[in-house]
């Protein structure tokens, strides 16, 4: 009798175990994606913010029921984030590592120099059998240097067009500050993004009729700017445009305050419209005008900013792009009927690439985001200025 009871209990236990295991398996079905960017070094804040934004968005998605997979089952999106230290060689290694996992797409990188190398090792044209480049979809959230997605058909970006932003900004400056005639530039010369954007700023400033009096140059790791600011002071410009990241932007602004350089208008780099600038030099940055593709001006953007903060990050134009990407990926996974199984990884990657390439428009935190044929985004933007240690919206070109 006892033996029979034990057998029954054991059988029941085994069945319960199997049921529980299959339930857990169904529950644990996850589509794997990877994120990567600089989480160490001078620009580590970009990676930290991007990771926080991705986690915040994925929590929203997963708590809302996850994604519907190709076979109709529900799945979660699982993220693993890697540090590439803003180093091209490490970035390549990280992406090769990600490509050897079951991740169906990678979100990153944060640095344009890494994106240049990474996109270069991808297959240039899809289906070109003579090109042995890596066939793995990557969508960039932060790397902002112009035209990067052109490098490969496996490369996508959800970053704003700085050309359009500064073109619009200088057109607005012309109407709002009719008395300004001259401009002086400052550029963080050894950083791909700031250096490339400075070219855009210069071109657009001159196109709007401003006379360029000169330019000061410094490096990302520089800490003293007295010579550059002295020359700036000597030029006595109406407008000073600083194309640099928050760390050196603050250094220059503090030096400008020390040398009493007070232009009529200060213009900054998109990446400097972040909390780091306010934390580093909120007083000196007072009044600086920056075009950005993020500000908490819509209910969605406000909610995103709160959620990103919950994960230890800060919402700015870069991390907001990462937040948006998570929702873009959810839609593509569902529209392309991604399976999310270990044996469908290669097919799922191709589906993700095809799905992203087919997009004409996506939902952004500030409104609809257009997609171009060369896999770039046309994002809505606005102008913010630093006022009382916060970023306040100064003008919305679309409105």
């Amino acid at each position, binding site marked *: 009798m006892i033996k029979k009871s034990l057998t029954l209990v054991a059988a029941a236990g085994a069945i319960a175990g199997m049921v529980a295991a299959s339930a857990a398996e169904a529950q644990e079905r996850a589509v794997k994606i990877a994120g990567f960017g600089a989480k160490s070094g001078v620009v580590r804040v970009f990676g930290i913010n991007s990771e926080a934004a991705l986690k915040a968005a994925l929590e929203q998605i997963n708590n809302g029921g996850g994604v519907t997979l190709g076979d109709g089952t529900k799945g979660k999106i699982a993220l693993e984030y890697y*540090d590439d230290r803003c180093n*091209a*060689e490490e970035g390549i290694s990280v992406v090769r590592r990600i*490509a050897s996992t079951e991740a169906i797409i990678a979100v990153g990188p944060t640095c344009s120099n890494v994106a*240049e190398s990474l996109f*270069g090792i991808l297959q240039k044209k899809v289906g070109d059998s003579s090109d042995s*480049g890596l066939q793995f979809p990557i969508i960039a959230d932060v790397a902002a240097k112009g035209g990067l997605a052109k490098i490969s058909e496996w490369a996508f970006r959800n970053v704003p067009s700085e050309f359009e932003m500064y073109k619009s900004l200088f057109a607005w400056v012309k109407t709002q500050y009719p008395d300004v005639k001259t401009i002086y530039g400052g550029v963080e010369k050894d950083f791909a993004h700031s250096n490339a954007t400075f070219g855009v700023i210069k071109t657009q400033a001159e196109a709007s009729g401003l006379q360029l009096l000169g330019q000061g140059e410094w490096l990302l790791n520089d800490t003293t700017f007295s010579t550059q600011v002295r020359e700036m002071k000597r030029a006595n410009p109406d407008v000073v445009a600083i194309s640099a990241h928050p760390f050196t932007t603050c250094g220059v602004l503090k030096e400008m305050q020390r040398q009493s350089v007070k232009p009529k208008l200060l213009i900054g780099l998109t990446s400097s419209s972040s909390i780091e600038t306010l934390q580093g030099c909120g007083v000196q940055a007072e009044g600086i005008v920056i075009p950005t593709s993020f500000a908490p001006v819509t209910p969605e953007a406000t909610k995103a900013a709160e959620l990103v903060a919950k994960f230890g990050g800060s919402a700015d134009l870069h991390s907001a792009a990462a937040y948006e990407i998570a929702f873009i990926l959810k839609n593509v996974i569902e529209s392309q009927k991604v399976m999310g199984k270990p044996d469908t990884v290669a097919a799922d990657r191709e589906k993700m690439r095809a799905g992203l390439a087919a997009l004409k428009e996506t939902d952004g935190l500030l409104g609809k985001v257009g997609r171009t044929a060369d896999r770039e985004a046309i994002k809505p933007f606005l102008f913010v200025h630093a006022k009382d240690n916060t970023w306040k919206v100064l003008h919305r070109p679309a409105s």
Partner: protein
Amino acid sequence: MDFYLGLAQIVGVHTLLGLSAYCVLLTGQVSLAQAGFFAIGAYVAAMLTVLAGWHIVPAIAAASFVAGATACAVSFPALRVKGLMLVVATLAFGEAVRLFFFNFDYQVAKGEVKIGPAGGEGFRQIRFFPENGWSTLDVLIFIWLFVALVMAGLWWMDRSRAGAVLRAVGEDEVAAQSAGINVTAVKVAAMTVGGFIAGLGGGIFAHYTAHIEHAQFGVALATFAIAYPILGGLSSVFGTLIAVVFVQGFLIEGLRFLGDWRNLLFGGLILLAMNVRPRGLIDAATIAAVKRMRTSNKEPGNARTQGAE
């Protein structure tokens, strides 16, 4: 698998960089110019494949010669100074090279796009490997063929009179000069060979990263170049290889999962390694021990030999 093959590519190229510094260190000179020669090799090889349409083999050969010739030319004035002065002189040269490429703009139109070095924005689309259908394994074999050739060459040199001369100069210049060795010629030769190897490594580096820019060839790379042979030990060429595997394979890739802690551990572990093995991971004592083991294994009365019989 692709990841490990890619990692082995990085190890191969960094081994070439380390071996370029190894040659110079053997003569007792500390050169921070290796990153500069590496940059010259990278830009020359990339320009030849991308702009001139050369095959990669003649391109990296030409790049190596240009880097070697530059090293030879630089070594004459640079080697007039010693010790810390030489470190500063070679560092200045490396920075001069980096800044040259920072300002070097030579783009030509290819269809609708312009290609070539674009100053601070770098040199993109160096895609010889993928455009010619080379798989990751093909690239790996290609890289390690050169690594093996260079290592074999240096290993042979170490066992020849040339190696003895290099080490003699490195140990005591005055004594070497007294023995009739032309110290300047030896130092220039070492610097030239080092420049040649760095140029070779740089040429390959440009092609596996697909994009190069001045910032990649800064002081950090120059420091890594001399750190590899110092960490690995100057007693054998294999020390440099072991050090590169330790740094690139373990410290950088192996500890990536540690996130921010990796950077803290990075310096700490190198310090620890240098303290535990002050003469390098493979020092003379290690080589002697390996030789003893091999000798004892070959002796007729040896237990293992008997067992095998």
